[in-house]
């Protein structure tokens, strides 16, 4: 269904890829760690290595969470990944694009055994 309007009604997406100056919007969440209230949004170059994204951008962003001291970069790589709701075999030596990440994609990662402040079920 389209918009009921009094005239012609068609517009560009305000968040189209071209508006991000060579980057794309990527959303990343460490599941169950809801001390951080929401997934992060980052503008990232598609050719940036997933490992660099995690090491230089995502892990520092999660530094306040006590679990972040317990998790190494390898733990994250071996974690359970979802890319846009489908399981992903994350390869940190490959770029975001090579891992299948697109503009407005959502990456979610779980590390078994690290489920927040008081363990299972509280999501903190």
């Amino acid at each position, binding site marked *: 269904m389209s918009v009921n309007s009094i005239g012609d009604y068609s517009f560009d997406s*305000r968040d189209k890829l071209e508006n*991000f*100056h060579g980057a794309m919007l990527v959303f990343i969440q460490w599941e169950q760690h809801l001390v951080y209230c929401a997934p992060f949004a980052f503008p990232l170059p598609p050719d940036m290595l997933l490992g660099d994204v995690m090491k230089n951008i995502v892990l520092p962003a999660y530094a*306040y969470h006590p679990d972040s001291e317990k998790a190494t970069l390898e733990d994250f790589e071996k974690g359970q990944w979802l890319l846009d709701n489908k399981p992903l075999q994350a390869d940190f030596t490959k770029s975001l694009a090579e891992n299948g990440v697109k503009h407005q994609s*959502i990456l979610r990662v779980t590390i078994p055994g690290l489920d927040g402040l008081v363990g299972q079920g509280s999501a903190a």
Partner: protein
Amino acid sequence: MAITRSKPKMGIKERYASMTRDLGWETSYQPMDKVFPYDKFEGIKIHDWDAWVDPFRLTMDAYWKYQSEKERKLYAVIDSFAQNNGQMGITDARYLNAIKLFITGVSPLEYAAHRGFAFAGRHFRGVGMRVASQMQSIDELRHAQTQLHAMSHYNKFFGGMHSSHLMYDRVWYLSVPKSYFDDAMTAGPFEFLTAISFSFEYVLTNLLFVPFMSGAAHNGDMATVTFGFSAQSDESRHMTLGIEIIKFMLEQDEANLPIVQRWIDKWFWRGYRLLALVSMMMDYMLPKRVMSWREAWEIYFEEAGTALFEDLSRYGLKMPKYYEVANWEKDHLSHQVWSTFYNYAGATAFHTWMPNDNEMEWLRDKYPDSFEKHYQPRFEHFIKEQKKGNRFFNNTLPMLCQTCQIPFIFTEPGDPTTTCFRETHYKGNRYNFCSDGCKDIFEQEPEKYIQAWLPVYQIYQGNCGGKEIEDVLRWYNFNLGEDNGEYLDSPDYDLWTQWKESQSRAV
């Protein structure tokens, strides 16, 4: 005792008819369709505009009489509040953060409502609806003005209240109310009234005004109480306009039902998402609490809303879609929202803090099924770190919902540990949503929501004053270190502590 009464020349019905309905006419120099070009394109079919019912038979002369009486009372209170240093009589300066959120997030909506009803008051061809909309347009302007007047007194002493309209246009969390109202104002007049008069004023507004103004009374804020109730006394008329417009559309033509149902589904969900801000005001920002969000939801939506929709079922209308999700969320909403504003306190024009021991106990008591298990551990961690001098500030920007523009803070219905994600594709682009409700709204009118001005992504596109968070906050016109941050580290807190100390010395 018998009261001798001078008999009025005309009864209430007659007076109303001659001073309202008789003001309209069938145009002859120009066709009606050209004079009223906007009341057909939405697809609503009206056969008899005169069938519109006005339960409150208020004429313009009576309107001015009552409104001026209300204004006189209101300004008398505001004056004496200022003269008597009423700001020192509130329970605690934390309370004023609710006022800051109100002046930046609600008062601009009053002004937007003034504009929206001015449009509706011009463009319905039925004169009864025009007059009701015109009165409401004037009411809403009065609300915006009296709120600014009443709160201007606090602005002399406290941060965060100095640039409400600029902030409304720019600040990330204020895009939630702004986009809500802009969505309504860019629809036609029938959808506008369904959105604002029915879904907001009739179904949801009690959740905003009644607990909030009672909260103000409970916390010694007489200025707000008075403007709140002065505004609220107009609200019954507004609510009635809301229910009558629904009945009118449904009685005029059966073909209107699916359109009206779709609008009600949409505007219930949009309004409910907007009220997320109110839930946290009630449960966290009032030092003395009136009732919990959960209790208010049960009284004003589950009870009153169910009675309303049972009544409307005779027209074939159903409860708004996803109301069950809202009912489920009542145990979680305020905690998830407060947690969010605690995270992003560096970027808000009001302060946040962690609840004290008594407040934690109140929360456990009011939310036995959710608070202790899911939210208390989070908050205890924040408190522990804050005591060590490590107050949490989340400095990474969040992902936003394409429709309601709220960060992705909501969890899957039935599972408060897993963030809820929904998505759709339109013309080769992907769009993300916080809920099924928001996704459905987008899918009905994708061309409208792909234009959404989503604050985080606008920052990343370079449209908000600069690259660094500080640049953006300056563009928001924040006084850094005064308007934003932790309450206990704020100038508000220092000033309040000084006042209280000098008061106790004087005693």
